[in-house]
């Protein structure tokens, strides 16, 4: 395949960026999108140009490191992570736009690499069960009904890639935050911190500069793991419930 790539190049957070155009030939439809970029980078290095920086690691769709906006869509045209997108979904001669996640809370580091550490701070503010090592009771002491366990699992699948934020016109992190709130708040193990968890995580999410939710649903469409949109309404309910019960105060 022969492609025209228009890739966002930006040296650093404070420097201006722009789309650079690259013509690339001999791309196999069996390549993943990232292997196509590897091929471009190998050629750029040999030409004495700087390769395109992008985050990636497992290349199996589970670590959540990769992510770019491809032709205006987070992770591109298929519902998957960028590493699992293959070139057979494009046509010979296509022009492809490649940009980083765009969100106020995800500043660009370089080229297609952004800073998503705000997600870690949201988790640190309440996305856990306080169970220090050694304190656990026997695993079968608390049965968890299968439907509850399945709901928890479905929300725990989030890989923290940030596609939901990138897809949202408001740059909101509601889907990411609600996935963790729902995972832990439905489980019996999550009950003691149920209220403080949602209040603190939502508070941190707002403080980190993520936008509000206006129910456009773009987040759930872009999510490569299929986190359901209902998780946002679950979090809203949890938040309201906790606010009434705690007078709006979290643990911290």
């Amino acid at each position, binding site marked *: 395949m022969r492609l025209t790539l228009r890739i966002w190049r930006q*040296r650093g957070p404070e420097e201006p960026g722009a789309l650079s155009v690259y013509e690339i030939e001999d791309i*196999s439809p*069996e*390549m*993943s999108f990232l*292997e196509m970029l*590897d091929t471009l980078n*190998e050629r*750029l*290095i040999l030409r*004495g140009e*700087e*390769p395109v*920086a992008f*985050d990636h*690691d*497992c*290349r*199996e*769709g*589970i*670590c*959540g*490191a990769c992510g770019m906006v491809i032709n205006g869509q987070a992770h591109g045209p*298929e519902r*998957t992570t960028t590493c699992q997108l*293959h070139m057979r979904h494009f046509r010979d001669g296509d022009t492809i736009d490649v940009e980083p996640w765009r969100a106020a809370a995800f500043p660009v*580091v*370089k080229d297609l*690499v952004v*800073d*998503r*550490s705000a997600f*870690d*701070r949201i*988790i*640190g*503010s309440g996305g*856990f*069960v*306080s*169970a220090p*090592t*050694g304190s*656990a*009771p*026997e*695993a*079968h002491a608390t*049965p968890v009904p*299968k439907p509850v366990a399945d709901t*928890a*699992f479905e929300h*725990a*699948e989030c*890989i*923290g890639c940030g596609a939901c934020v990138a897809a949202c016109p408001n740059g909101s992190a509601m889907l990411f935050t609600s996935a963790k709130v729902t*995972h*832990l708040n439905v489980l019996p*193990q999550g009950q003691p911190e149920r209220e403080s968890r949602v209040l603190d995580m939502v508070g941190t999410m707002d403080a980190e500069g993520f936008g509000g939710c206006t129910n456009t649903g773009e987040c759930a469409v872009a999510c490569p793991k299929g986190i359901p949109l209902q998780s946002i309404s679950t979090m809203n309910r949890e938040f309201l419930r906790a606010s009434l019960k705690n007078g709006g105060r979290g643990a911290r």
Partner: protein
Amino acid sequence: MNTYTDYATGAPIADTKAPEGPIEGRWDRRRFEAKLVNPANRRKYTVIVVGTGLAGGAAGATLAEQGYHVVQFCYQDSPRRAHSIAAQGGINAAKNYRNDGDSIRRLFYDTVKGGDFRAREANVHRLAQVSVEIIDQCVAQGVPFAREYGGLLDTRSFGGVQVSRTFYARGQTGQQLLLGAYQALSRQIAAGNVEMHARTEMLDLIVVGGRARGIVARDLITGQVSTHFADAVVLASGGYGNVFYLSTNAKNSNATAIWRAHRRGAWFANPCFTQIHPTCIPRSGDHQSKLTLMSESLRNDGRIWVPKAKGDTRPPAEIPEDERDYYLERIYPAFGNLVPRDIASRAAKNVCDEGRGVGPGGQGVYLDFADAIGRMGRAAVEEKYGNLFEMYQLITAENPYEVPMRIYPAIHYTMGGLWVDYDLQTTVPGLFAIGEANFSDHGANRLGASALMQGLADGYFVLPATINDYLARHPHDEVDPEHPAVTEALMSVTDRLRRLLENDGDRTPDSFHRELGELLWDECGMARTETGLRKALERIPALREEFWRRIKVPGRGTELNQSLEKANRVVDYLELAELMCLDALHRAESCGGHFREESQTADGEAARDDEAFSYAAAWEFHGTGRAPELHREDLAFEYVHPTQRSYA
């Protein structure tokens, strides 16, 4: 250019610190005899942890909970992305919830046997003991394991065993366990007990006065190289499978932390013990950047076959039942498709070498679910393996509900690693290695669902107990930042980076990495010969010399520079690969994952040589291009008596 194929033999390892006495009581005894640090004094101690996977994440969180000041590093942008996240199948534990005859003793037995009698008994028994606590701990954290309708935990069986002791969370067990550890770690970061440095890579170890006292690390965003000091250093940086270029490891997983530690005095044990996983998606072309594993759990219900005839290119549906060879079921009727990984991998290679392989280049075998779908129904298969089928389809554009999967073996895990004693301490006092970074528990072959068990055992329970003893014996004192050893470590890192950037060459880091990887796969992969290994030992130093002549790294050192990161890792692979080949050459037996062609039985099965090789080989570094020194740790089997493994 120096090459070596010989080595000196040094003093054997006399003391592993494993306590004496009945094996059931050894861990208790060690914990009781270990000195403790008063809770009020713990905050005076700083412990560096490198890596945030299952071992590192669990250790960082647990040490911080105990009151130590933890400074932790990962190269990823978030600790949640460590490659443990990609483990699919499950985690073993001797809970015996199935009442199917499982016990700590049996898990111990299976693991020693599965490792082909090349692991230390005392460590493996401890692992089996601790396995039970791991499940409790993870459930308490909210890890959403698979459950049955009664609300209790579900289990499944895995290769190499005859009980159902593997706990799982669909095909994402590693992800869920890692998120549990990550969340516990995040809680400690937010509480100020862990100082987390993400996007920061360890590039050297600082040894002062004979003790590990810190690391040199590079901030991958600013390029700044800095020193960090501590009372003890814990390496949880994973395995070195990426030395092969194509492996199931994450692209950035690397051997630099353990190799730099090796150069600073930590002995490296059994480097040639690498695991080839039987169920990976075959490569599709030269552009292939990594290989993707399909969980071994698929072998529970999938049947592996190839055509009986050579060169049969008919589509699988057109090959009638009596022209198919279900070769694992035929050769190993008792275990069938559930034979251990090494046996399944070698059998796949054999049928492909015979010309009966399927798919592009004949490098693949079928893994067929037609019978399972017929027996259980499509919905049940989907419930069990849905995400794996989806992943396979995404990559290959083939629907495994309709056509059989194609699989082929790939490098997946490294049993070798830094040599550690019973306390998980390396030969550098104050330097500990946990998880895949050490060599300890899996011998020459790891059983499925045992890596997660070992990572979490080391991180949650073993290291946090044993490190106390070391710290209690070494009261805190400050490291002089001007100490010559500190300056030397810092300079060696910056010099090397400068050399890489300044070289005006014409080959990319990846081109060298690929070439090295292919050489290793051919000569130091599943099947090895003396001739091939000698050839590799000739070739690697030449490649290393060429690397320094022709390497080209664009950009600057003072910014995010992924080419520089790669090149710097390849430097270490070029030394590690040589040690792997030497270790493989010296171990002239077939054992675990490795088939040494000169060492086989009359009917072509692997022949282990207990007389000559019942030891762990720990190598001491003596300089690049210089022969290392071998120290043997003799293995005594008091409880599980070595037999030639039989899965027939």
